[in-house]
């Protein structure tokens, strides 16, 4: 007898004539074309609940898989960066979007993940600490160590909220940066930096070979992109499931009104702590992947700007949506690349400091404007715009 089984006595329903969970054979003609008729909670709870969605999702994944074979080096780098930022964005979205705890310290946890991976899988012969282990050990640890640090920090964070929490996490960021700078054994010291983890996964050196399978050429960059993409898909599904589980509902309850959530029996302390730990773990993996992509790590890299980049992903993409985080990451990562391409066509836009305005400035202005626009007009971000469009046509020809 499951926990949620409703006892017939309470509902007044007959025990003798009880057909709960009874299933019969029906012709396919009865099933077809009736997407909102549910005969089990499993189907009504399915993540991808309609055939149309299944088809589109499949096409999207196929498209993502085909990208490395159709794009040049610069673009492939951008796409890899996109998947990594998306992982970081999903992590922050769990904390900020779902649990409603603002955090500016996300870059610190990314840094922590990067250093963990670098220490565990770094080349022992180089300038800083390194044990030369496999990525199969380093990547999980890059999630676990920041997760544990998140657990340690969480008790402080659970005591405050709103602006104070933002300041607290900002402080965390600065402390972290200071530690990274001064602990030169770990980081190579301020201004120097260190090499990142070696690309050895399951004993295979990913940098060594280029594979060819049929018409597809798997260069090391392509392989790395595919690894990041796989991780993104896995972590996105995990996050989506967390979000719609009991834990996710508790997050949302805390976000909407923490006192009400507590009255309903949600353990505030536990919930907030879990949100911090989970978010930090996601950040750790993203940080590790990012450092491996770049190859070197400097302590200054994990600063406020990176935190704000991730924040922009969440806000522009859509607060409390997993797909939104991916859309946001695409926007934040690809916009600069596109702008740089545009400099060829727009005379007053330049790559360097000459001209009226340069790419970096324009990008900053655009992000700032968009964050303001989305926060004030559509808090669900780009994804929210999509939802609006979809609902407009879903209700067609009515309005509700």
């Amino acid at each position, binding site marked *: 007898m499951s926990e949620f089984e409703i006892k017939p006595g309470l509902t007044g329903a*007959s025990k003798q004539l009880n057909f709960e969970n009874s299933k019969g054979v029906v012709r396919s*003609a009865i099933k077809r074309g009736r997407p909102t008729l549910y005969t089990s909670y499993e189907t009504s709870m399915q993540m991808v609940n309609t055939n149309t969605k299944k088809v589109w999702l499949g096409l999207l994944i196929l498209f993502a898989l085909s990208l490395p074979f159709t794009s040049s080096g610069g673009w492939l780098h951008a796409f890899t960066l996109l998947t990594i930022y998306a992982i970081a964005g999903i992590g922050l979205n769990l904390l900020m979007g779902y649990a409603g705890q603002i955090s500016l310290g996300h870059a610190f946890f990314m840094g922590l993940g990067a250093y963990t991976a670098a220490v565990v899988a770094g080349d022992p012969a180089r300038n800083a600490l390194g044990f030369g282990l496999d990525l199969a050990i380093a990547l999980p640890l890059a999630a676990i160590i920041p997760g544990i640090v998140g657990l340690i920090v969480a008790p402080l964070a659970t005591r405050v909220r709103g602006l104070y929490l933002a300041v607290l996490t900002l402080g965390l960021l600065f402390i972290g940066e200071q530690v990274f700078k001064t602990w030169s054994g770990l980081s190579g010291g301020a201004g120097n930096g260190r090499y990142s983890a070696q690309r050895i996964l399951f004993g295979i050196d990913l940098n060594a070979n280029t594979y060819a399978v049929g018409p597809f050429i798997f260069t090391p960059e392509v392989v790395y992109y595919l690894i990041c993409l796989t991780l993104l898909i896995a972590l996105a599904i995990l996050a989506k499931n967390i979000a719609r589980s009991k834990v996710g509902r508790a997050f949302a309850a805390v976000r909407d009104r923490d006192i009400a959530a507590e009255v309903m029996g949600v353990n505030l302390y536990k919930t907030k702590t879990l949100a911090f730990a989970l978010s930090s773990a996601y950040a750790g993996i993203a940080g590790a992947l990012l450092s491996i992509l770049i190859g070197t790590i400097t302590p200054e890299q994990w600063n406020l700007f990176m935190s704000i980049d991730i924040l922009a992903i969440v806000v522009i993409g859509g607060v409390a949506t997993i797909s939104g985080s991916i859309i946001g990451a695409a926007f934040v990562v690809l916009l600069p690349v596109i702008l740089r391409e545009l400099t060829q066509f727009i005379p007053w836009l330049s790559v360097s400091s000459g001209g009226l305005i340069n790419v970096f400035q324009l990008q900053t202005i655009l992000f700032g404007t968009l964050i303001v626009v989305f926060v004030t007009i559509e808090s669900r971000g780009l994804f929210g715009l999509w939802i609006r469009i979809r609902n407009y046509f879903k*209700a067609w020809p009515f309005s509700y």
Partner: protein
Amino acid sequence: MLTTTASLDQISIRKGSEPFKKPATEYFSRVLIENAQKYPNHTALRFKQFGLWQDITWGAYLESARKVAAGLYVLGIRQGDKVAIQSENRPEWLFADCGSAILRAAIVGLYPTNPIAEIRYLLQDSEAKVLIAEDQEQVDKALAVFDDCPNLEWIVYLDARGLHNYDHPKLISIDELIEKADGGYQNYLAIFDEIDQERTEEDIATLIYTSGTTGPPKGVMLTAKNISFAGHVFSVEGGVFGYGLGPNDSMLSYLPLFHVVERALSVWGNLLVRTVVHFAESIETVTQDLAEVQPSRLFAVPRIWEKIQATVAIKIASASRLKKFFYNIGQRLGKTIAAERIANDGKFNFKAKVLYAIGYPIIFRPLRKRLGLLHVKHSLSGAAPIAPDTLRFFLGLGLPLYEAYGMTENSAVATTNFADAMKIGTVGQTQLWSEIKLDENNGEVLTRNDGTFVGYWKKPEATKETITADGWLRTGDVGEWVGDDHLRIVDRIKDIIITAGGKNISPSEIENKLKSSPFIKEAVIIGDKRPYLTALIGIEFDTVADWASREHIEYTTYRDLASKPEVINLIKGLVKETNKEFARVEAIRKFRMLTKELDHEDGELTATQKLKRKAFEATVPGLVDDMYAGTSAYPGADLGREG
């Protein structure tokens, strides 16, 4: 498909076709056993529980019916006894029905909104021994009349909520009923078999009380033969739906089950051809249930069709401009499509097909999907005349909607419009294995088929007036032939108005024209032995309220809204428009607003929402006198001689 035999018969009997031999009487209790043996795991019924549609298989259906039968047997129900049930549509209704059928007892359906006085009358008149009451509300009513009903021995309730501290020696739950059978229903199978051996087709299978628009309801006795015939006509190839129904058909059960058509579809037809019947959660959720179930065949009364049309009007009024724009395109296309179809016996000609194809992706498909009519292959309107405008609206949406005609007394089998032979304004052609003729004197419609009832329960006089010596049923409706073999119903004989000037006027035509407006829910034409026609009009609260809020008219209650000068003006315009379509003697000169919604409990409507015309007129003498005395004390308008 249909043949006219007018030339063969001097009194011009129109005969329905006989594409194949009329099936012999099938006993539904045996059919249930057969289905359960052949398809034990196939779904027969579905009902919604906690958001999910739960399946009831044929095996479970039979088992449940037997459980109920065993319990009823222990309570003393024997051949010829009556079991009453007062409940909304739910699977237990069917278990009680089939359970009684196993015992050769007859089921009597009471309507959940029946007030206590009617319950008392129905229980006394039917002499039911056991009453199955749905919930606390119905149990309360039953207990109030228990002592007045000498035949009533037991009350069985289905839903135990709120009943745990009721202490009445004759009140038991459905579980207690089932547990009364010693050692389970299995011990009674031999007895059931024995009872089954003696079954005849003259067994009274059910008592269906007529709505009683003119007097107290009369119990129509339908035999096993009658309901088997009706079940076949409602489900076989060439029957009411034109095509045969089967396991590929999804049905929604939402009209009251004591309505003969709902029984024919949800019980009899379902048993014969194994459709999948979905029980609507409640009458309030029908729209949502329709959208979920998307039935493949649908029967609805005009009131439901009007309601759907009104819902569309309200929702479009608040939709965005773009959506309105596309809807208006769809409306224009729809008008032409409907006109083309009407001109072509209901068929799509090339032009209609092209227009439909244009409108399909932008409006028809999404609209029909939202309304739950996307998969409807054939739908019917019956039980009351439908306004032609409403019919046109749905024909324009591409819906195969046809008007049919029948009554409880002939097991709902008389005429229907077939898919390729529709004539708007008529109720269609004679159905399978049936005959229709008109009385030479007064034009009354007479029908004859195997569905003709055997008599009114305990009312031999009334029976004699209704069934002629050679088996014709007097329907009480005046009809006329249109074309070769399409029947048009003029009105109920009793309703026809003869004005002081001696003109015969059929009020229902005018009323229906008025009611086809989304703003008018009730329209009652008055004028019998009066110098001119007048009307009492009740507004459709939802649509008028919506209209009022868009026009910035403030109102509080139904009464207040109905009395607003702006609303009266709106209605005045509609009445004038209606008057244009009728002759001058048929024009409405004055009307008054009804300031309350008509209701079953207040005695104005029957259980099936039909107007009790005479009784109703007596309840509002002030309004009627106001119109003929030349005063204007009540809200309404006088339109003058020209109308």
